[in-house]
């Protein structure tokens, strides 16, 4: 199969289709994922092709969706749950952090819980409250869960397949503001390893680490910095728990400077852990403390000010400057 130009949304759709074809135990569950194809159309056409037993429109109850997905997993299924928007995952919180995350452990490995929780996350789409949140740290702090996020169509295609193939519960964070951005996707590609970070751009003067929607901002910042004569390395974390730190440590040992970027609030966001870990491991390599460019420690604001809330090229470059100015 040749490479195709696909949106991230369509790449996910293709990945889901492939996973369903490969394994009849894969079922999709969620609100409006059937005829409507989900509010973002990620499951478009799948109910038509796989039937109502495999693409299950559920009652409007998130705890119920995740809880019944757990039951289906006990029965031998591999449920892929769609949470309609980031801000609607909280009613399912107990089922995710106390049940799903812990049942493999509780059973001393006798029970596997191959459940994927897909969450369109992040802001920048002009939405109303609860539609632009970044809850990933809540899940990354939870032992027993793995948390990943794709940043581009090519990764989206294989990462969703790998997540479904995983025997562990995975929270799969989808950068909704990038859903309709396009790139070339090789549909014949063999899935890579899900829990690896990727160096997307090499550089020698400073490192930017990002994930999901902010990877694009990181790349743009690096390109802009180049014009100022600064060579920036950009790393896409992809896996937020566990984090593949080896490329990050290697990069920081080389550049001596690190900027972490995410939309979630700064306080106890992913950047806090990255900062702590990198400082623990690369103490003598750091020329400046790790800089964090993040959402502020406020509830996601009204959309007319979200551009000021969200990290952008200017704020990232400002942090790079800060690092150099230390």
């Amino acid at each position, binding site marked *: 199969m040749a490479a195709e130009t696909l949106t991230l949304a369509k790449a996910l759709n293709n990945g889901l289709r492939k996973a369903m074809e490969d394994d009849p135990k894969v079922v999709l569950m969620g609100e409006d994922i059937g005829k409507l194809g989900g509010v973002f159309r990620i499951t478009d056409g799948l109910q038509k092709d796989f039937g109502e037993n495999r693409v299950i429109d559920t009652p409007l109850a998130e705890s119920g969706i995740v809880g019944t997905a757990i039951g289906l997993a006990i029965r031998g299924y591999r449920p892929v749950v769609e949470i309609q928007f980031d801000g609607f995952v909280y009613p399912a919180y107990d089922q995710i952090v106390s049940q799903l995350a812990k049942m493999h452990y509780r059973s001393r490995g006798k029970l596997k819980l191959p459940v994927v929780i897909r969450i369109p996350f992040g802001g920048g789409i*002009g939405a*109303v409250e609860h539609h632009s949140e970044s809850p990933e740290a809540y899940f990354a702090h939870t032992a027993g869960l793995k948390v990943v996020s794709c940043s581009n169509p090519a990764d989206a295609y294989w990462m969703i397949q790998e997540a479904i193939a995983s025997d562990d519960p995975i929270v799969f964070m989808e950068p909704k503001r990038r859903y309709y951005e396009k790139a070339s996707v090789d549909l014949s590609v063999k899935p890579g390893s899900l829990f690896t970070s990727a160096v997307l751009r090499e550089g020698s003067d400073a490192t930017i680490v990002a994930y999901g929607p902010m990877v694009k901002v990181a790349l743009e910042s690096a390109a802009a910095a180049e014009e100022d004569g600064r060579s920036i390395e950009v790393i896409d974390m992809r896996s937020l728990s566990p984090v593949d730190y080896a490329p990050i440590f290697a990069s920081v040992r080389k550049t001596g400077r690190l900027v972490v970027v995410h939309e979630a609030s700064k306080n106890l966001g992913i950047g806090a852990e990255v900062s702590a870990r990198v400082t623990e491991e690369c103490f003598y390599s750091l020329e400046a403390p790790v800089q964090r460019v993040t959402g502020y420690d406020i509830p996601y604001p009204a959309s007319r000010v979200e551009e000021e809330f969200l990290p952008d090229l*200017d704020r990232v470059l400002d942090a790079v400057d800060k690092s150099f100015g230390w």
Partner: protein
Amino acid sequence: MAEKAKAKAKTGSRSKTGGQPEYVQLLTPEGDRVEHPEYSVSFTDDELRSLYRDLVTVRRLDAEATALQRQGELGLWAGLLGQEAAQVGAGRALRPQDMAFPTYREHGVLYTRGIDPIMPFGLFRGVDQGAWDPNEFKFNMYTIVIGAQTLHAAGYAMGIQNDGAVGDDNGEAVIAFFGDGASSQGDVNESMVFAAAYNSPIVFFCQNNQYAISEPVARQTRVPLYQRAQGFGFPGIRVDGNDVLAVYAVTKAAMDNARRGNGPTMIEAYTYRMAPHTTSDDPTRYRQSAEVEEWKAKDPIARLGAYLNNQGLADETFLADVEKQAGVEAVSLRERVLSLPNPAPESMFDHVYAGGSHHLDAQRAEFVAYEATFEGGAH
């Protein structure tokens, strides 16, 4: 055993519509008044006319909002087209001391409470998040997380009881709005548990508009929703949600019952969402236009109009005036929406905490300093 589950017709109701379970109806789709053994209304002619005016106005304002969204002036709009009678009927049945807990669609209820219809536009335009004082208007902020507000309503009702503000005709009561889809949420069911346990002065008002986005109500329940209440130990009743008179009568009775100390009631207003779920929705993906047409024949405004006409209560002048006034309100609304000021960027740091936070003060200062580095303040 299966027959035990069979829906039982509610005692006392008489009208039947298209094979649907029975509900309370006082005005047929054709505009004929019918009697009901338990529920009645005694409106003056002026009151009937003002009900009609409300229905037309809230529809007109809703259309204006949809237009504003299409023109890029709102981020989103959740329309009420088709649900005017359910909302106006319920809203008009409230007394000034009553407290309402809306979803994101109760623009009609809000209007009948005498609240400036611009109030929710901040939320949909994205200049704020629906920033009003629930106690000032006896109308809680819109709630987007499905079902969450029903628990707030149940708690508020507990507070009324604790205050001793219940027990006679001047008692206070609460009305909690939610949709057919919301009935599946744990929170909604828990709110019924609490309301029943404390016998609180609350009415659960479910607008069954047949859909939760694309999902038909059958995905949520296999029996009429009003029957849910029985399982929690309080009465449930279904009303023709496109009949403003019936909705008014049933809601008023339930609210009065609550304020007198007789506990909760659930009302299912059986209606239809004529428009998309929101302006982001594409209903052609999940429903047939024939269904929409069918419901057009039950239009809540047309039927009151027909009744007024039959009764000689609405002449050309009146109808023209209603249209005109609604238009004036709509134009005024539009103008005021367009001039809603954008929030100052640094205001996003306001009101995170009532008691402030040195942490956030510092973050805000940093933000302000950063913003100042850009020439002219913008970037």
